[in-house]
């Protein structure tokens, strides 16, 4: 027996098998205990409940949903809401982050001071506190009756923010968005694979055809999806106690957007700043020696290099920010997490729903990371383009 234990290969194998078996066993025992406990409560396990109708309302939904809709549809609404929030808040955070990051590396003392104050204020306070803060502020806006329209079509009220919109069906807006995203993906792919081998004139022509096609298709999709017998633009107007027409952004959604983009912006600003600082001085000095203007040096040399340097860090940051959207539950924004937790309360199908929640987040986060890694592969510097 002792001799067997001294044999390294056997010992290694036993260790590995024991480790993996312990983890698997924990999971199996947990599942069996759970099944027994849930059976004792008279709950049937399995995913059959997804077809049952929910019976509860969801305040904000991108697709049609009513109290008689099944559970799977409620979960879909939640996922779409989370993605929708992420699709608005993450780009906004990027815009804020890049602006502040540039301010902090501009060399202008006043801009740096404002930038550093912003970053330190919003990075050092928990996100959920900021969310509640903005939400309270938004709810304290005047009631629709007392609010006034500004700039011909925007109104800030305690019941939401009204902005002008297009009178098109949700489906066609969705198609148009997909077309634009697909066009951008295609452009990135061509940029990595095809255009470098083409001569400049051909590459430019292909780029123009591609973007022209994308914009054209998007416009056509919106045009077909027009809601009949309405004007093209829908502009909010005051009627009685409320506003009609236009698009209402609920205070919950707005607070989530503001909080996540401001909080995320502070983090992204720091990443961008680190990126600018990592661009070797020689690069901008070389640009100056070639007689480029300050703007050219910034837009053609420093910014592209900085973005490429920070891309891997940024990808992690985006995944992290997307996970942060779950705090919407603190102000009852019906995102993925909130729908799941309501569904658990209502149906009692705890394990299945938690499984869906975890699976959903794994898929979404891995997809974000995968897509952004492809972007990174497409734009990253090759060989000796950057010597630090």
């Amino acid at each position, binding site marked *: 027996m002792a001799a067997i234990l001294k044999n390294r290969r056997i010992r*290694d194998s036993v*260790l*590995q*098998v024991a*480790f*993996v078996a312990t*983890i698997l066993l924990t999971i199996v025992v*947990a*599942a069996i*205990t*759970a099944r027994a*406990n*849930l059976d004792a409560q008279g709950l049937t396990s399995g995913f059959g409940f997804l077809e049952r109708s929910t019976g509860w309302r969801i305040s904000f939904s991108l697709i049609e949903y009513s109290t008689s809709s099944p559970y799977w549809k409620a979960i879909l609404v939640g996922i779409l809401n989370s993605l929708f929030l992420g699709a608005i808040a993450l780009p906004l955070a990027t815009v804020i982050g890049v602006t502040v990051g540039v301010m902090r590396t*501009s*060399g*202008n*003392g*006043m*801009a740096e*001071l*404002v930038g550093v*104050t912003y970053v*330190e*204020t919003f*990075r*050092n*306070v*928990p*996100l*959920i*506190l*900021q969310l*509640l*803060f903005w939400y*309270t*502020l938004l709810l*304290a806006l005047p009631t629709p009756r007392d609010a006034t329209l500004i700039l011909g079509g925007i109104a800030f009220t305690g019941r939401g923010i009204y902005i002008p919109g297009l009178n098109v069906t949700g489906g066609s807006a969705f198609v148009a968005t997909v077309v634009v995203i697909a066009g951008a993906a295609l452009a990135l792919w061509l940029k990595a694979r095809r255009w470098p081998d083409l001569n400049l004139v051909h590459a430019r022509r292909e780029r123009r055809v591609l973007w022209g096609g994308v914009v054209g298709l998007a416009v056509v999709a919106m045009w077909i999806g027009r809601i009949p017998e309405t004007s093209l633009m829908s502009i909010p107007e005051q009627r009685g106690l409320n506003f009609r027409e236009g698009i209402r952004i609920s205070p919950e959604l707005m607070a989530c957007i503001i909080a996540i983009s401001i909080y995320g912006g502070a983090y992204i600003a720091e990443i961008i700043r680190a990126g600018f600082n990592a661009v070797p001085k020689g690069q901008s000095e070389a640009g100056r020696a070639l007689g480029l203007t300050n703007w050219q040096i910034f837009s053609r040399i420093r910014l592209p290099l900085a973005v490429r340097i920070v891309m891997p860090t940024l990808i992690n940051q985006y*995944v992290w920010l997307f*996970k*942060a959207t*779950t*705090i919407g*539950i*603190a102000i009852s924004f019906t995102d993925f*997490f909130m729908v799941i*937790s309501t569904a*658990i309360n209502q149906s009692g199908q*705890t*394990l299945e729903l*938690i499984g869906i*929640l*975890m699976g959903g*987040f*794994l898929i979404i*986060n*891995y997809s974000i990371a995968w897509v952004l890694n492809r972007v990174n592969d497409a734009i990253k510097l090759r060989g000796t383009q950057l010597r630090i």
Partner: protein
Amino acid sequence: MSFAADFPKDSAFNKAKARYFATPTDAVVSALFAAFAVWILWSLANWALLHAVFGANQRDACMATEGACWSVVSTRWRIVLFGLYPFEEQWRSAIACVVMVVVAALSCVPWFWSARRLPPLWIAGFAIFYVLMRGGWFGLREVTEQNWGGLSLTIFIFAAVSLLGMPLAIVFALLRRSDLPWIARTMALVIDVIRSLPLLSIMFTFAIVMPFVLPDWAIGDKLYRVIVGYALFFACYQAEIIRGGMQALPAGQEEAAKALGLTYWHRIGYIVLPQAFRNALPPTINQFVITFKETSLVTIIGFFDVMASGRAASGNADWNFATIEMYVFVALIFFVFVFTLSRYGAYLERRLGVGRR
């Protein structure tokens, strides 16, 4: 004529000129940002200082003014700091918090940075904290966890998560870079999966779902389940940080240790981990900063931490118009802790950067 006279003087005026007014564009940008900053500062000062009401129990004065109502803070600050802790015993909660803050401050002193000093310091500090808060010994009245709240609960969760998560992180990191492929792969999968889930969903799972999954004797209090879940999450992130620190070590270090005939535990304990921690110090501090901030998520699971108490303090009919002031106060509490820690992290990063060759 001296050589130095050929260079422009490095006077304060010239420095300011270079930083704020180097070019006409710079001057305009500076002026714009200065105007913006002055406007914000002026509105803030107007609201927070000039028109504000400070003294306790001045609800009527608050209703009359345009400015901030700090009266809500001076009236109800005890709820924010101590939650539902019995009024006569709140001095215990205060001392316990001070002890934990002192422990955290002492851990920033390089003298304590060794495996012989840091863990005993934290365990002793945590034990004092727990005995003071819980009572039942030394003639102290017993106060159960259900009555803990406010800042002391936040600090308790943070300290417990750190104390539990750190050893776990070291174990995870070692398993993750084990030479045995199946152990390394399984651990990598576990770490990746947990890291891609939101902290909130993990806390939620441990608080709500675990009672179904665990055998009865292992269920424990909801607070401790959430702490375990959070510690697990913390450990997965911290394990990757430690692994990064290990990867930055030159391979020669471990090879030299092997050549000297050191055992695995000696290699890890004396060669790898100390240097890995040194490399990973700035991201580790950053991780603690994030961990402290995110303890506020327990509010959603239904705990009465400093954030929830802040909401409760301004949540009654008398003070519900002063919610913003309460949030600002809680934000200030977080800011003091988090800002100090992150500044310390930045200082360490500079200091370690100087020493690196």
